[in-house]
C-alpha cells in the first residue's frame, strides 16, 4: 500500500493542493497527516477541512504544537510571529474545525509504523529531532520499526542498527530508498506548507508498505499566490518572504 506522509501543512492551501495532487498521481492509497495543519499560512479553515475530510475516510492525523496552541492558547516558548498567527487563526476557524484539532491524538500507530508530530519520547513536550541524539532517543522510545514525524521542517532520514549504531541522511527527492529490515528508521518528510531548507518547493514523502521503500518528494507550487494571501491577511511580512525563499 502506498501511504502518503504529509506534515507541517501550516494553512498553505496552494502547497497542500499541489502535494495532494502529486500524491494522487503517484498512486497514494492512504494518507497520514503528521500535525501542524494551521499557523503561518492564510488558509487554516480550508486546510483543516481537507484533513478532516480525509480522516473521515480513514486517514491518520495527529496533533501538532500549532494545532494545540490554537485550541488552548500558545505556550510561552512560542515565537512572536507564530503567536500572532495563532490569534488570527482562532478567529478564522469555526467550532467544528476547532473541535477537530482538539480531538487529534498525540500519536497513532498502524502495523510497524508510529506517527507523531515531534518525537516518540515526549510527544507533548514538542522537542525537535535536531540530530542523531534525539533520533536515537526517539527510536528507543517506541517498539515500532518506522517512526514518521514532522515538527522539523527539513527532510531527514535517521537509522539505527540492532548494535546501536545510528546514521543520518539527507534524502534526494524522487529516489526510492529501501528501508532495510535489519534496522529501525525515523523519517521526517519535511514541511509541506513552509519549507526552510532554501528550496521553496513543498515537501512530502511516500511510503510503500509492501516493499518498505520510502521516497521523499518536492513539489513546486504557486508560492507567489500563497505569499500574497499571507500579506493580504495582514500576517507578518516575514512569513510571506519565507514562502518565497524557502527559508
Amino acid at each position, binding site marked *: 500500500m502506498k501511504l502518503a506522509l504529509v506534515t507541517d501543512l501550516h494553512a498553505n492551501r496552494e502547497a497542500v493542493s499541489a502535494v495532494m495532487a502529486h500524491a494522487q498521481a503517484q498512486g497514494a492509497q492512504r494518507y497520514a497527516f503528521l500535525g501542524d495543519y494551521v499557523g503561518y499560512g492564510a488558509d487554516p479553515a480550508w486546510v483543516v477541512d481537507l484533513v478532516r475530510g480525509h480522516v473521515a475516510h480513514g486517514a491518520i492525523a495527529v496533533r501538532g504544537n500549532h494545532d494545540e496552541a490554537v485550541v488552548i492558547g500558545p505556550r510561552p516558548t512560542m515565537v512572536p510571529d507564530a503567536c500572532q498567527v495563532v490569534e488570527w487563526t482562532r478567529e478564522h476557524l469555526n467550532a467544528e474545525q476547532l473541535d477537530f484539532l482538539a480531538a487529534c491524538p498525540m500519536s497513532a500507530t498502524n502495523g510497524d509504523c508510529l506517527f507523531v508530530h515531534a518525537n516518540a519520547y515526549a510527544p507533548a513536550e514538542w522537542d525537535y529531532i535536531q540530530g542523531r541524539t534525539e533520533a536515537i532517543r526517539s527510536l528507543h522510545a517506541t517498539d515500532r520499526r518506522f517512526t514518521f514525524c514532522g515538527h522539523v521542517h527539513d527532510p531527514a*532520514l535517521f*537509522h539505527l*542498527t540492532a*548494535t546501536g*549504531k*545510528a*546514521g543520518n*541522511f539527507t*534524502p*534526494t527527492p524522487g*529516489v526510492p*530508498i*529501501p528501508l*532495510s*529490515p*535489519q*534496522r529501525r528508521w525515523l523519517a521526517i518528510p519535511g514541511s509541506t506548507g513552509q519549507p526552510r531548507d532554501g528550496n521553496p518547493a513543498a515537501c512530502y514523502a511516500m511510503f510503500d508498505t509492501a516493499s518498505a521503500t520510502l521516497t521523499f518528494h518536492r513539489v513546486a507550487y504557486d508560492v507567489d499566490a500563497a505569499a500574497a494571501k499571507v500579506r493580504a491577511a495582514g500576517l507578518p511580512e516575514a512569513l510571506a518572504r519565507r514562502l518565497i525563499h524557502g527559508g
Partner: protein
Amino acid sequence: MEAEAPANRPGPLEPGQVVDGFVLEERTHQGGMAQLWRVSKVGSDDPLPLVMKVPRIKGGDDPATIVGFEVEQMIMPALNGVHVPRFIAGGDFTRQPYIVMERIEGESLTPRFEAAPIPIDEVVEIGAKVATALHDLHRQHVVHLDVKPSNIMFRPLIGVDGKAAGGGAVLVDFGLSRHDHLPDLLGEEFVLPMGTGPYMSPEQVQFVRNDPRSDLFALGVMLYHLVTGQRPFGAPTSVRGLRQRLYRDPLPPRTLRPDCPAWLQELILRCLEVQHERRHQSAAQLAFDFQHPNQVVLTERAQRATRSGSLQVMRRWFSAMGTEPAAGASASGQTTRSPILMAAVDVSGADARLLDAVSSTVQRLLHTEPGARLACVAVMKTNRVGMDELLDGDGSSKHVNLLVQLKRWARPVLQAAGTATAAASDEQAGRVTFHVLEAPDVPGALLDYARKNHVDHIVMGARSSGGLRRYLGSVSAKVAAEADCSVTVVRTPALAPERER
C-alpha cells in the same frame, strides 16, 4: 516436489532445497563471507542462469557481514546494464538472507593474477574493459570501493544462448559500495578503514567513501600487479601499514618489467597518485587513454626509474600526518564534471564560416567545463567496395593531410583550453586529442566512435545550403537522431536574401 524451507530456519542449506521459489541446485563457491548456489526459479522458463548468494554469519553478532549484505541488497536493485549482474530477488535476515542474481558465465580475474606477469596486450585490454565498467557504475551514482580481481568477472564473447555476450567486464559484490542518493549504512559502523588492504585508495584509508577516483586507484593496483607480478603496496593488514601508501611510492613498473611501454607506466602511476586530483578525473577518461595509447601525453611518470628518495618520503610522511582528504565528491557529480567532448569537424568540406562557428562553440564549452577532455574527429570517407586511392595527386597521404588540417583548425581551441586553465600542466596538455577515422559511412563512423569512447557531448556543424544537404543527406541530422549523448548542431546564420532587382 521439495518442501519449502521453514520460514524461521536460516540453517545449513542442502541441494534440492527450495527457498522462496528458487531450487538450490549446486553449491559453486564457499568463501569466508558468503556461499554461492546455482539456482533455478520453480516453474520459470526464463533461460537467464541464476545464482543465489547467501551470507555466512559467523556467530550471533557479525556486523561486518550483516551490514555488507544490507548494503548490497539496497544497492543492487538500483543498478542496471551489462556491467553488473541483474538483480532478481532478495531475502532478509528475519528469514533466510540471500540475493538471487544473474549468474555470469565467464571467469573472474583471479586466475590471471595467479598467472601474473601476463602479456602487455592483455593488461591493456583488461584496463580498458574494467575502466568502461567502472564508468557505467559511476554514472549510476555508485562508487564500488572494493575493486579487486575476485570482484571482476568477464562475460564470455558468446553467451550460453548462442548470442554475442560482448566479453565486457562485470563488477560484482557491492557490500562496501556507496550510492550517492542512498544512506551510507557502513559509514558509521566501523572504526577501521573499509576495503581490501592491497587495493584501498589513500582516501579510503582516511575514511572517505564517496570518491569515484578511489576505484581508479584500485584498478591501478590491479594493473600494476598484472604487469609486474607484484603488488605495489604489498598486502598490509594494519592501519599503519595501509597508511604507508600516503607517502611511499611504488617501484615504477618498468624497472620490474622492461617491456612495459612508457605510456602504460604513465597510466598506471597516474592511477596510483596519492592525490585524487592528479589521477584521471573519470573512468571514461582513463578508458579513452587505453583505447588511444599513442595520444597519451608522457610526463615524468613514464620515464621514472626509481622510487622517491628518503628525504622526499619523509616530507610526504610529515604532510600526510596532518592532511584530511577533501570531501564533497560524489560518484555521478565527479563524473559529470569530467565529461568527454567530441568535435566532429568536416575540415575538408565545410566552409570557413561554419568551421569558425564550430570552433567558437567548442571553446565556450571547454571554458565552462574545465574538467572536460576534447576529442577532435574528422572522417575520411572511403569507398564501400574496392581499393581506395590513399594518396592524393601530390602523392601525400590523405589521412595525414586531414590530420594536419584538423590540428590547424584546433589551434584556437587549444589556446582557449590553455587559457581556461592558467597553469597548463602535463595532464592539461593531454586534454585535446586528434583522430582521423576512415569509413564509408560518415555518420555511422561518428556514432560508433562516440559510443566506444563514452563521449558525453558531440559538437558538429550542419551544412546550411539546401541543395547540397538534399543531395548528400544531413550527417548532423542522423548523428543528432541516433546518438546516445547530447549533440549540439552548429549553424551559421543565413545571410539576408538579396534584394530583388
